[in-house]
């Protein structure tokens, strides 16, 4: 009787550990992408978009419009890689400037950046994978 109880406790503990480690697997990925994304953001984006994603006047749009980020999530990879031109409305303001292309960035670097932007400045998109980035880049039509 006592042995059975012990076994039972072990099994429950084992399942819990498994579940927990799975969860932390994604959590670790998310944290890793976010940290790498912060570095990549500082190198490739921050000069213009600012340390707080605040943008600059009507010259450079901010990254704090959470609705825009959410609704255009699958275009962001393409926008980063191929650049942006023409009119866009962000945070209720019209912007019409050119964002230079960053064609040298690899999909994983772009995924890092999207994880950082998407989970900073008030945004909360959760984890955005490298596979998703590749899919979004392939399907990108400006």
């Amino acid at each position, binding site marked *: 009787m006592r042995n059975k109880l012990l076994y039972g406790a072990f099994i429950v503990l084992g399942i819990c550990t498994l579940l927990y480690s799975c969860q932390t697997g994604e959590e670790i990925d998310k944290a890793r992408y976010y940290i790498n994304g912060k570095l990549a953001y500082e190198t490739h984006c921050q000069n*213009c978009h600012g340390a707080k994603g605040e943008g*600059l*006047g009507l010259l450079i749009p901010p990254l704090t419009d959470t609705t825009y980020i959410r609704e255009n999530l699958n275009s962001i990879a393409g926008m980063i890689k191929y650049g942006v031109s023409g009119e866009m409305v962000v945070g209720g303001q019209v912007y019409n400037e050119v964002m230079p292309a960053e064609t040298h960035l690899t999909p994983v670097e772009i995924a890092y950046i999207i994880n950082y932007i998407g989970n900073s400045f008030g945004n909360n998109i959760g984890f955005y994978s490298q596979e998703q980035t590749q899919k979004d880049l392939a399907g990108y039509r400006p």
Partner: protein
Amino acid sequence: MNKLVRVAIILFTLSACTSSPKKLPILGSREAVTKVVDGQTVVDTLYQTLPDFEFLNQDSVPITGKTFENSIYVADFFFTSCPSICPIMHRNMVNVYNKYKGNPEVMILSHSIDTKYDTPSVLKKYAEKLGVSGNQWQFASGTKESIYGISPKYMVFTEENDQVAGGFEHQGWFILVDKEKQIRGAYQGTEEKEVQKLMDDIDILLKEYEK
């Protein structure tokens, strides 16, 4: 009694610490000139001053040294399509602009080093999108010779260089100039802390002109 003496000594020592109002240094080269005053030969220091200039501002109005004769000003060099340090510089400069907005004694002079593309109308649009109106912040365009000729006078390096992003290489210094056209400070325009120091120094410099 002994105690009283001690307190007196401490107070006396402390009173020596209250410094006279802080003064900014005068930067740049200087030379000694000898002249005769009241029959006596004295040596005076002649400080470097900025030469006169003529540019067009964002309203296509000519601006010269005279435009800034009753104000101290902050000068920098940039171009509107700059993908590297200019957005940081002007994000910081907007803070300076907002702090002294409406104070005719403080002006800003941004020189465009892209003398081909940055015409007054391009600069006007840029200024508006930056949130700048009026003429407290002047955006200067000029000939290549005049812009690249004056930047070393401000001790700022500028150069056309197709090897760098954007095609122009330049430093991000903010240069503080007094009403006598003397350079009183140089601050890294890309560093928020240095720009804060610039604003502190502007306050110190303004005090020199208080009557």
